[in-house]
């Protein structure tokens, strides 16, 4: 377990920058095929460390597919074929000697629909730790508490840690999923529309949480909600039908995009 506690890097409020300071996730001419159809077309983009990057775009533009390339969740679909390379911290994650399990330990994921296991709240958070070999009870308990506190859920559930996670509200369940993802201390958290099934209040809590988590984790979030992207992300990538149209500081994308298509989308003229 490596503890990551670096000071917060000011990004969005530090004014526009051409590219993230430290390249962390490098996607190099990545194409993805579902059978014969090409879902991602030659995408190259570099994402920075400990920043929030938002993927936006209309439905079916490939943003979720790209997100799933980052922890190789697409491997589970038989008909998927991938060209190009994805490097995280300089390592090609599609290389022949890559252990997918180790990769997914470092690249956590939160899904659109909250999906806590039908186990107790405690067991949900502890599951990942147990998977990766943590057996010591006090160590587990400490890690569970820390993760729940970090995901702003601790105060609500500390008295019923051992009751079923399915008894929580939708927003609480989603925060539990975030706690579960951060419990194993990944370096990157992928979020696939984490708030799209939640009410505005719960959404606001998740957004606060994301801003808080940015201190410790690199976050890539797919969202349909453009206000959300504008509120929480430092960088934004706009996709359209499998292509990366534009990638820049969020402020620039939303105020002064370089491409006409981007402008049309963010101003709500299509999509």
């Amino acid at each position, binding site marked *: 377990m490596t503890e990551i506690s670096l000071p917060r890097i000011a990004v969005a409020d530090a004014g526009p920058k051409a590219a993230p300071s430290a390249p962390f996730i490098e996607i190099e001419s990545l194409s993805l095929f579902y059978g014969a159809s090409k879902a991602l077309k030659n995408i190259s983009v570099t994402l920075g460390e400990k920043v929030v990057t938002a993927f936006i775009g209309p439905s079916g533009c490939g943003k979720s597919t790209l997100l799933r390339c980052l*922890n190789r*969740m697409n491997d*589970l679909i*038989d008909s998927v074929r991938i060209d190009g390379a994805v490097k995280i911290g300089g390592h090609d994650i599609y290389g022949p000697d890559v252990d997918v*399990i*180790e*990769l*997914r*330990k470092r690249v*956590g*994921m939160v*899904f659109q*629909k909250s*999906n*806590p*296991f*039908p*186990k107790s709240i405690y067991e949900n958070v502890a*599951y*990942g730790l147990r*998977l*990766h070999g943590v057996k010591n009870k006090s160590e587990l308990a400490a890690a569970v508490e820390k993760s729940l506190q970090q995901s702003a859920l601790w105060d609500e559930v500390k008295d019923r840690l051992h*009751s*079923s*996670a*399915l*008894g*929580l509200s939708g927003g609480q369940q989603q925060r539990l*999923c975030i706690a*579960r*993802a951060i419990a*194993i201390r990944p370096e990157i958290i992928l979020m696939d529309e984490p708030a799209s099934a939640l009410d505005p209040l719960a959404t606001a809590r998740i957004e606060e949480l994301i801003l808080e988590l940015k201190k410790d984790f690199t976050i890539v979030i797919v969202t349909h909600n453009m206000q959300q992207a504008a509120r929480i992300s430092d960088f934004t990538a706009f996709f359209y039908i499998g292509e990366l149209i534009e990638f820049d500081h969020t402020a620039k994308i939303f105020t002064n995009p370089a491409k006409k298509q981007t402008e049309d989308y963010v101003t709500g003229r299509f999509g």
Partner: protein
Amino acid sequence: MPSSHKETRRTPGWMGIHRGHKARPLEWLAEKFIFLVSLSTILMVFLIFIFVAREALPVFFGQTDTALVSAVIPPAEMDKHSPAELQKYLELTPEQFKAMDKDTLKTLMDVKVEAQNDIPESFRNSRDARLNTTEWRYLLLPHQWDDYKKPEYIWQPVGQIKKFNIIPLFVGTLKITLIGLLFAVPLAVGAAIYVSQLARPRFREILKPTIELLSGIPSVVVGFFALLVMATVLQKTFGYETRLNAFVAGIALGFAVIPIIFSIAEDALTSVPRAYTQAALALGASRWQTAWQIVLPAALPGVFAAAVLGFGRAIGETMIVLMVCSASVMSWSIFDSARSITTTIAAEMAEAVNGGPHYRILFMLGALLFAATFVSNMIGDFVIHRFKNKLEGKR
């Protein structure tokens, strides 16, 4: 007020809403028809139970008697006894008794005396010949019969002295069913996990129907196979003495039960939301860990239901056990022969005298089997609901 109400009713666009159930007569008819059909199913099960219970009732009330030697009333002393006593002595119903005149009754009493005189000398003085072996203590407890050195549990429903101890049958049923389940549940659930979680889709499409095809094999064929092939192979492998025993029957039974357990367990495992699998995989679990630690616990109510259904099928399976082993030996050893309750009923019902003690006891066995299955299903249902509520966070 009423007039305004009328007004609303006449509004053309709202006419239909006041027509009630007559609005769609065909649907109404179909609904009632389906209701009647489902009701008749329930009724039929109920009637079967009533029938079985009614035939078995005399045993429960102690109205059956198998005593070979009984006190006789000489026909000459007929008048010394009350009509009620005579009726009981001649084993007649009140109606039958009323319909008979004195001469007929006398003839019957003569027959009774003759029957007693016909009893072989060797039994006349036997202690056992005076027992009513359908009393509960002979049905459930060991008894030291004549020529036996110690009290024993014996099911031997033919011969002069009928021995109806049902314990060997229960032990036999239990032995065979448990062996069958111990063999079938791990295999079937393992196969279900493999097919639903680990196998490649193309392989799954071949495996699933193939295993389910097993359920189409008539149990007589399974029994035949077990009798001729499995019994020999298993005896060679394990080297036990009795070739046809509870172990062979249990394994053969397992083959009949596997497809049922597999099919239901596989459905339960497949219906676990993919979101759970995805979450576990995204946490870095292997496919095997996901299947074992996440999917199986989430599907446990369904898998348990599969096992309960398998139990029901196993305890009710007759033919395989009948073919493979059928000696009613009282023994807990799985390598001894055994006879299950259903086998006993199937094999002996045809030769039991209608309405006689043997016939009644067989029906009582049926009723007990009915009750056992019912109770096991109830317990199964209860446990499944507990599991489900626990999983869903309701307490």
